[in-house]
């Protein structure tokens, strides 16, 4: 395996501006996400944090127009390197994604190789190229040692292995950006730590731009260069992660940090 290319000297920028997501209740529009503006650069990790229901996952879904039924994006624009783009066109080739629950994110009737073939085809890879790219991607996430992995069905793998496989699929298209929506929530602590290490290594070695959605400030402290805090559908506070941890401005941020400190104090 050749070492992955070094990060490009000029970072690419994915920017979401004033995203607004609405649903309809009794005929009236109810905003779920308001004025969400954030910027993701290659080689950098942006964390989107907030309590459950604060709109972080919806903001991510709005970025790629994969909102759940019943909700729609009513305002905002997405731009890549300063040029406005259609969110749907970003999927796969520009922005790869890792979902929260690895168990349900794989079709139980299809092997890992089948999934890789599909993802590769969506990214425009030829069949032979897809096979080689899959082997390379599996090696990159630490699943390269066992030659049986591509032929395994999802139910034959552990949650941690599946999450690795999903990250491998996300790497297949060599997209410059990766969106990970709570990638470690369904995993045990050991698997969590390994996945976070893996993500950090990918950002470092491949210059990926990582948007990580989480409610776990531990994950944020470990990975994120910059952090945006969401509450009630708005980004209430954002900036450099170290500064945010040192001087939290808003009560929502303080609450998340307090919960984090309480938990880590309990653990130690």
């Amino acid at each position, binding site marked *: 395996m050749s070492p992955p290319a070094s990060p490009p000297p000029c970072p690419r920028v994915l920017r979401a501006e004033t995203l607004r997501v609405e649903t309809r209740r009794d005929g009236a529009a109810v905003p779920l996400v308001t004025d969400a503006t954030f910027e993701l650069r290659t080689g950098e990790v942006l964390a989107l944090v907030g309590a459950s229901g604060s709109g972080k996952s919806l903001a991510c879904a709005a970025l*790629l127009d*994969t909102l759940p*039924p019943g909700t729609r994006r009513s305002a905002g624009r997405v731009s890549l390197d300063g040029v406005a783009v259609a969110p749907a066109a970003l*999927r*796969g*080739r520009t922005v*790869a*994604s890792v*979902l929260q*629950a690895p168990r*349900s*994110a*794989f*079709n139980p*009737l*299809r092997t890992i190789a*089948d999934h890789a073939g*599909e*993802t590769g*085809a*969506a*990214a425009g890879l030829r069949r032979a190229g897809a096979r080689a790219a899959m082997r390379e991607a599996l090696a990159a996430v630490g699943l390269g040692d066992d030659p049986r992995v591509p032929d*395994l069905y999802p139910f*034959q793998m552990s949650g941690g292995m599946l999450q690795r496989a*999903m990250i491998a*699929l996300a790497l297949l*298209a060599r997209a410059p950006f990766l969106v990970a929506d709570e990638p470690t929530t369904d995993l045990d602590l050991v698997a969590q730590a390994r996945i976070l290490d893996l993500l950090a290594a990918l950002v470092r070695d491949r210059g990926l731009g990582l948007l990580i959605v989480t409610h776990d400030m531990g994950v944020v402290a470990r990975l994120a260069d910059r952090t945006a805090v969401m509450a009630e559908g708005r980004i209430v506070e954002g900036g450099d992660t170290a500064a945010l941890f040192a001087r939290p401005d808003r009560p929502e941020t303080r609450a998340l940090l307090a919960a984090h400190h309480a938990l880590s104090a309990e653990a130690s």
Partner: protein
Amino acid sequence: MTTSGSLRAARPGLGPLAVPGALAVAILLLTLLGPLAAPHDPLAVDLTARFEPSSLTHPLGTDHLGRDILSRLIAGARTTLGAVAAALALVVALGLGVGAVAGMLGGRTDAVLMRLCDVFLTVPTFVLALFLIGAFGTGLVNVIAAIALSHWAWYARIVRGLVLELKTRDYVLAARIAGAAPPTIFVEHVLTGVLPPLVALATLDIGHMALHVAGLSFLGLGVQPPTPEWGVMINEARAFFWTRPLLVVWPGLAIALAVLAFNRLGDALRDRLDPTLVAERGL
């Protein structure tokens, strides 16, 4: 223990599929072979040998025109079940197509297609058959058309429901996020979930549709004499019911056996393929 070994051990045997499966395969084989498997020409009239009892040459005897009943039953399987196969192919194709489009696209397309289904659901098979036959004349093609037109809407609704359910799966969302096109997503991830229940349903309907074909032919609306067909045979034997009841019994028994075999097979398939039932039994 290797992974594949433990999986093989967990796979259940043929179980309840065995008996109805064997019967259905036998019936299907007779259907495929048709007249080739018949000991006599099913159309050969021999007025000197009318109403012969069972014998070695005519195991089930002969009918009012001296035709061999066993040969007519075997040849009739092809007519009846061939018509069912044609109707079923139309129904599944139409139902799968409309249901998939409605389920995948949703919105206005879905609403329009489902109202169309509602219209077809209101028309009973026999009424539709009578209309078609009144307009285009009697014949097997019209019977097949009538059965297909009065049944496809059920399949479309079921397929749509399954598609809507499968569309919410995370792996469908994952495929969308990976940039896969809707047709690819349908074939790769939705169809795999739609087909098993659809196969079970179609198998269950074979018997039901065989009754329609035989019933319409019995009424003189479908297959016309002298073509061997089970419903036609019963109709022809009706005149001699009080003197030669066996003439009615044999084709009746053939219909009953075929319906029973395919119903049992469909039940067993549904038990095997329906994920909710499989989950309940903890397999």
